[in-house]
């Protein structure tokens, strides 16, 4: 204990805070997936459900088929993308509340499915013993790439169209923005990001259960994005960092975690429509 070297100390430190450090990165990805939908003026409450699909897909591919992780990861992003297509098809034609409500329903449907498809998903007992393959560098590399990607898109012509949709959909439509394609594209990309995050979570916690990807998680993800705001892609990530680390730093806040998340949503929508970080991307000339 006395002759502890720096390396040993660092090892203990990383061990102690590993879960938190992983969660920060994964939550950053989830916040970005929310950002992606909100950037076109839509609201999805299914990010937790998409995350769940990614988590279960990834875990099952690893456990049952023993596929290598570099293959599992993209497949876990693909599965929720397909579901997003199915959900988006009928609802994106209608007003925004229909997408919001059907994505809540999606979470419930999947929960029932996970519980009943016991032969595959382990039912209420969930899946355990998932190998820990989500390395720290991988999580943060993916997060970095995602931010970079959104930043590039935000500065392009596509970004301008998205902003126009967010401000006024009808006007954007008249200006020639292909609304259905943009909405569907955003939903699919956001589902893929959430799926990635889910797969990383499963391969970092080594245990997943059917009740982890429900309404509460969906609202938490929404609060990440709203705290940061959706002016720039880095803002929701910072929102996620703050809301994930805050309860760890201020232990007495634990009980009030959900109260705070809820209040953040209220205050953000009412008073800070551009989030706490109001900067916006400067567009390329």
């Amino acid at each position: 204990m006395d002759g502890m070297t720096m390396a040993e100390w660092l090892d203990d430190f990383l061990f102690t805070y590993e879960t938190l450090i992983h969660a920060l990165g994964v939550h950053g990805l989830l916040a970005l997936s929310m950002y992606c939908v909100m950037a076109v003026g839509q609201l999805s409450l299914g990010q937790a459900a998409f995350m769940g699909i990614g988590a279960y897909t990834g875990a099952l591919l690893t456990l049952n088929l023993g596929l290598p992780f570099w293959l599992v990861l993209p497949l876990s992003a693909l599965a929720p993308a397909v579901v997003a297509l199915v959900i988006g098809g009928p609802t994106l034609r209608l007003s925004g509340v229909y997408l919001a409500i059907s994505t809540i329903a999606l979470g419930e449907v999947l929960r029932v499915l996970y519980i009943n498809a016991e032969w595959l998903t382990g039912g209420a007992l969930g899946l355990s013993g998932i190998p820990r393959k989500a390395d720290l560098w991988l999580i943060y590399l993916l997060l970095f790439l995602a931010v970079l990607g959104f930043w590039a898109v935000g500065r392009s012509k596509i970004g301008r169209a998205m902003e126009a949709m967010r401000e006024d959909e009808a006007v954007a439509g008249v200006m020639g923005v292909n609304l259905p394609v943009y909405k569907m594209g955003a939903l699919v990309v956001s589902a893929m990001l959430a799926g990635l995050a889910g797969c990383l979570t499963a391969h970092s916690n080594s245990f997943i259960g059917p009740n982890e990807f429900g309404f509460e998680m969906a609202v938490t993800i929404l609060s990440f994005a709203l705290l940061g705001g959706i002016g720039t892609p880095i803002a929701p990530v910072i929102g996620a960092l703050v809301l994930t680390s805050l309860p760890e730093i201020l232990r007495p806040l634990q009980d009030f975690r959900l109260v705070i998340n809820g209040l953040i949503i209220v205050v953000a929508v009412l008073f800070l429509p551009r989030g706490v970080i109001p900067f916006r991307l400067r567009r390329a000339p």
Partner: protein
Amino acid sequence: MLSQQLVNGLVLGSTYALFALGFTLIFGVLRVINLTYGFYFTIGAFVALTVAREFGANIWVALPVGALSAGVVAVVADWVLLTRLRRAKAGELSSLMVTLGAVLALYSLMAVFIGTDIQRFPFGFVDNTAIEFGSIRISLVQMLIVGTTFVLVAVLFLLLQRTKLGLMIRALAENEDAARLMGINVGLTVAAVSFLSGTLGGAAGVLIGLNFNAIQPFMGEHMMLRGFAVIIIGGLGDIRGALIAGVLLGVLEVLTAGYISSNAKEAVAFTILVLTLWFRPVGLFGRAQAKRA
């Protein structure tokens, strides 16, 4: 056994319909998916519970007190959360998000202070013994629920169609600016609608809490998921649709559990919801117009 199952379904379905009435009214008039509605349901039940416990009130006192308190809470919540957005003509998604955040904060705050243990009305608060009609058993509370649901639908209809307030509400539902030009006090009408729906939600909370004898902060949230299904299947803003969809859903759930598998019961609501969204997004009865983007 089938007849008993149909009664079970009717009772369960009535609870869904009763819950959905106020929810769909808010949307029909104010064009808001107001998620704090679930909290009105919870608070109605808790106020009635407190009145019954602390002051020994009977059901005929506890029910109106609980319902009216929920109405007051609804007016305050609407004023605090939505006035600003309404003035700014913010989209329906903003109001959905605000009420979502608010309801989460309210439930959790209640859970922190009251705890999530299930609470019950005092023993003997209502006569819970079942009455037998041949092979069918139904309790007084259950009859009260079914009766109240149908009566409330009728009263709500008359109110909307035959009274001056009803006229004002319908005008507001049609077009807010036109209503204002016609000299209707929009603020007051909005408050009246909030009060009405809050009272309906509170009454549902008391009766349903009484029937299942289980009251806890998140009871509104569990009900909300069924509530979504009912108001979409019935058509957003459609009161008769909510009644029919609620009863239909209850009966289908009970029959599924009784004759197919209790595992499938949970999936019924959302299966019909998804089918409705695919094939008939205006709702089964097609009166409400879904705003096309």
